[in-house]
């Protein structure tokens, strides 16, 4: 067997009640200030301790949270949310629509408060709370995704006005670390240690149902392996986001349950088809050959996505074609069979041959326009193991069609810097998205190109297409989901055919938990055995301790202490003894 340990797990009991111990997202918590925090670890925590207007259900649709229901005016500009009545913040103060209105207004008006979520409210005209249970949001333009802007984890958290009012001046430096943090949610943050852990208590009167555990601990493990080790050793109950190898091993481990959810992100390759500014001025050092759609098509044909899924992901993912990930089936799009770029190096070679890319003596094709060999840089994130693994395949595949790719590992910071300046040929990239695709679609629009002086710009691959932009503007004003999905589909088709963003795969989201934690997973498996995407918000809320096992092993931290002390003593004794024996043997001190 490959498993390290017996896999027996401990009851997580400690203190009063049951504790759910989860591994915090590896990024950790940058700050507990929800207005400025970016790290996923922090966002996960906010999901548990600050309320949002809405939440999302199993199917990724918006569902009631603070808002029991919501209405859209006929002119599509005014949203009225009916806020639940009688809620109280963790310090006993009433939670009303006024808190929500105050929070949203602060983000709209204060630069610092808008640091993290300003974009989400950019289209807001006004937010008011006419009474304690009514919240009215007026937008400048019709905006179809308003019921997604304040959802747990990825949306705007609502904060208690009576606490935060005092901090609007020093919002930038306010760390919000005095516990218990006043909030409302399934949990109350009672203790926080930077870089170590967060301790939370269950809110037994939570609106959407009380958590089954009494306590939640989010602990940081910088290396997933360490977390997995802790899980196997029974020191941890739940890990999100293990990698393929870990997952495969854990699948066989006793006492551990595993699950894969369909991915909420894509992994692929971006091609620099001609970086330019908003006014169309070319910038950067990208290889001009990539402006040729034929070359890009050939590159797309040269990649064997199935092999990548099989070998890099060890089968734990799906081949990706469309831009938006399968976690949000409402937006999914697939190319028609005749459009599909299947792995076909022969076809790619033929395309290139026909387009006049002649192979040089070293097998590298020459760009007919510039007469330069096709030497392309392949930028990868140096800290991303998938990038590294996939790039090895790509280089080899590209070689097979006469393209010489050189891998350039770059730090995230350097890569982003180069990206914005257009100083690249090919980049490995990956994005994830929540249920609302607006932002992800937006970074492919012409509006995100940089200014002529190189400033500004938020583009991802310098993709710019007029038709696409038109559709992009259109989709955000369509309020019928099916209708909107169709437009989004058309946009994805344009992206697909542009071959500036070649999607490789959607890797699954992998979860491992102690077998004694039940109720974690909702939804039903799809044909591949994948579950629908779930947010940590629900996972922690729904997780339930299994019934106390008879005669539990009792191998928990407390009694383990004796053992480890024993072993250390033993080591010292053995080591010291050895030394003493050696000393004895070396003779008495009656010599020199």
């Amino acid at each position, binding site marked *: 067997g490959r498993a*390290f*340990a*017996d896999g027996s797990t401990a009851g*997580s009991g400690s*203190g009063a009640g049951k504790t759910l*111990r989860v591994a915090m997202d590896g990024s*950790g918590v*940058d*700050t507990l200030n929800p207005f*400025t925090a*970016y*790290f996923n670890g922090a966002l996960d925590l906010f999901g548990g301790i600050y309320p949002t207007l809405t939440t999302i259900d199993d199917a990724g649709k918006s569902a009631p949270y603070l808002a029991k229901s919501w209405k859209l005016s006929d002119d599509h500009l005014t949203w009225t949310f009916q806020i639940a009545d009688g809620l109280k913040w963790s310090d006993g103060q009433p939670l009303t629509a006024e808190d929500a209105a105050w929070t949203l207004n602060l983000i709209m008006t204060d*630069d610092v408060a808008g*640091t*993290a*979520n*300003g*974009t989400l409210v*950019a289209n807001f005209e006004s937010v008011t709370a006419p009474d304690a249970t009514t919240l009215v949001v007026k937008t400048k333009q019709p905006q179809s995704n308003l019921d997604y802007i304040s959802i747990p984890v990825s949306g705007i958290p609502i904060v208690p006005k009576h606490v935060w009012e005092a901090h609007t001046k020093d919002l*930038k*430096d306010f760390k919000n670390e005095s516990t218990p943090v006043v909030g409302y949610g399934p949990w109350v943050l009672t*203790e926080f*240690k*930077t*870089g*170590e852990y967060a301790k939370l208590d269950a809110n037994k009167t939570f609106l959407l149902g009380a958590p089954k555990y009494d306590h939640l601990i989010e*602990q*940081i*493990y*910088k*290396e997933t*392996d*360490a*977390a997995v*080790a*802790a899980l196997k*050793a029974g*020191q941890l109950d739940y890990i999100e986001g293990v990698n393929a190898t870990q997952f495969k091993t854990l699948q066989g481990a006793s006492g551990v349950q595993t699950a894969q959810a369909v991915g909420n992100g894509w992994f692929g390759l971006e091609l620099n088809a001609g970086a330019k500014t908003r006014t169309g001025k070319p910038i950067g050092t990208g290889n001009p050959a990539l402006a040729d759609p034929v070359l890009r098509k050939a590159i797309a044909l040269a990649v064997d996505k199935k092999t990548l899924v099989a070998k890099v992901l060890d089968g734990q993912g799906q081949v990706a074609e469309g831009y938006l990930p399968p976690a949000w089936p409402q937006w999914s799009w697939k190319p028609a069979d005749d459009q599909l770029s299947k792995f076909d190096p022969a076809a790619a070679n033929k395309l290139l041959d026909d387009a006049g890319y002649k192979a040089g003596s070293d097998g590298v094709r020459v760009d007919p326009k510039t007469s330069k060999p096709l030497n392309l840089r392949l930028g990868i994130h140096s800290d991303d193991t998938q990038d590294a693994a996939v790039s090895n395949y790509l280089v080899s595949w590209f070689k097979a069609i006469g393209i010489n790719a050189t891998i350039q590992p770059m730090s*995230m*910071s*350097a890569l*982003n*810097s180069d*990206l914005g300046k257009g100083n690249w040929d090919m980049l490995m990239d990956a994005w994830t998205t929540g249920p609302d695709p*607006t*932002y992800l679609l*937006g970074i492919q629009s012409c509006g*995100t190109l940089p200014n002529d002086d190189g400033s*500004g710009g*938020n583009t991802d691959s310098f993709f710019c297409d007029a038709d696409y932009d038109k559709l992009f503007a259109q989709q955000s004003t369509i309020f019928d989901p099916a209708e909107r999905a169709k437009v989004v589909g058309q946009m994805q088709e344009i992206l697909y055919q542009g071959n500036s963003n070649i999607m490789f795969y959607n890797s699954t989201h992998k979860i491992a938990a102690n077998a004694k934690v039940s109720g974690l997973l909702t939804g039903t498996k799809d044909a591949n055995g994948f579950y629908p995407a779930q947010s940590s918000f629900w996972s922690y809320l729904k997780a339930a301790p299994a019934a106390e096992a008879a005669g539990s092993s009792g*191998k928990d*931290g407390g009694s383990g*202490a004796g053992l480890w002390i024993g072993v250390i003593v033993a080591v010292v004794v053995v080591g010291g003894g050895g*030394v003493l024996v*050696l000393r004895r*043997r*070396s003779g008495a*001190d009656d*010599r*020199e």
Partner: protein
Amino acid sequence: MSSPRYLVTKLAAAAVSFAVTLVIGFVLFNLMPADPVRTMTRGRPTSEAELGRLRVQLGLDKPLWERFLDFVNDTLHGRLGYSWQYQQSVASLTMHRLGPTLLLMGTAFAISVALGLWLGVRSGWRAGSLFDRITSATALTLWSVPTFWLGMILLIVFSVGIGPIHGFLPAGGMSDPTLPQTGIEHYADVAKHLVLPALTMVLVVYAQYVTIMRASIIEEIGSPYLLTARAKGLTDAVVRRRHAVPNALLPSVTMIFLHLGGLISGAVAVEAIFSWPGLGELTYEALKIPDLPLLQGTFIVFSASVIIMNLLADLAYRALDPRVRAS
């Protein structure tokens, strides 16, 4: 040279070293073009205007020399710059992490020094004996082990468990959050978390001290004053303890302090592996982005600590060695 003057000279030298460190630090970390703002906001809906605002906030729009002045001013005010990823002053970040790092390094240092010096004296005194050969071979081998690798192996063996060994030590962190965070139990718990990272560091570091001390003792062994001591009729142990060790200790102490940088280096890898919430891990975190101001900050803190330790070593050496004291 008189004592106060000596102190002043040494302090001045340390101050100059520190200033140089600051400059080296700044130059290093501002050489590279970086777009921290896009990095910070990556994967989140962020508008262009917001990106611009962040750039101004981080002072990235200023020319280099202005940034240098800001940096000096910042450092003099004890802020050490502003972290891109944590969006707070590097000083406050490092302050949090200093405690754990000191705990880990202090423990590892104390144990390594005690163990290393003891073994070094023993094996140097009887160079070539079985004890010496075993000690030296072990030390050399352990010195050759990559720290992080040893850490990983120890992690597997003692935390995960392998074969018949059950993992019984925590896999990471500094304390078990399920336990109360005060009182004896807490200290025991921290100690328990400390075992693996400290052990890893000790195993790699003590070897150096063994070698240093062994060499110093061997250096002293031929000394005529030891012959004198023997001729006085002192027993071997007394000769060693009262005459050889105090003399051998002096060069060793300097060497040990000089090797302090090595200890810090070990700490980075070890903290990364054991999720020990210290400066090393912070460095490791900063490395991923890389968060240059934070790297710069940890770098300066590390350098400053080495400078301070070397200063202390100088003073200690002076206090210990009458010869140096006089000159």
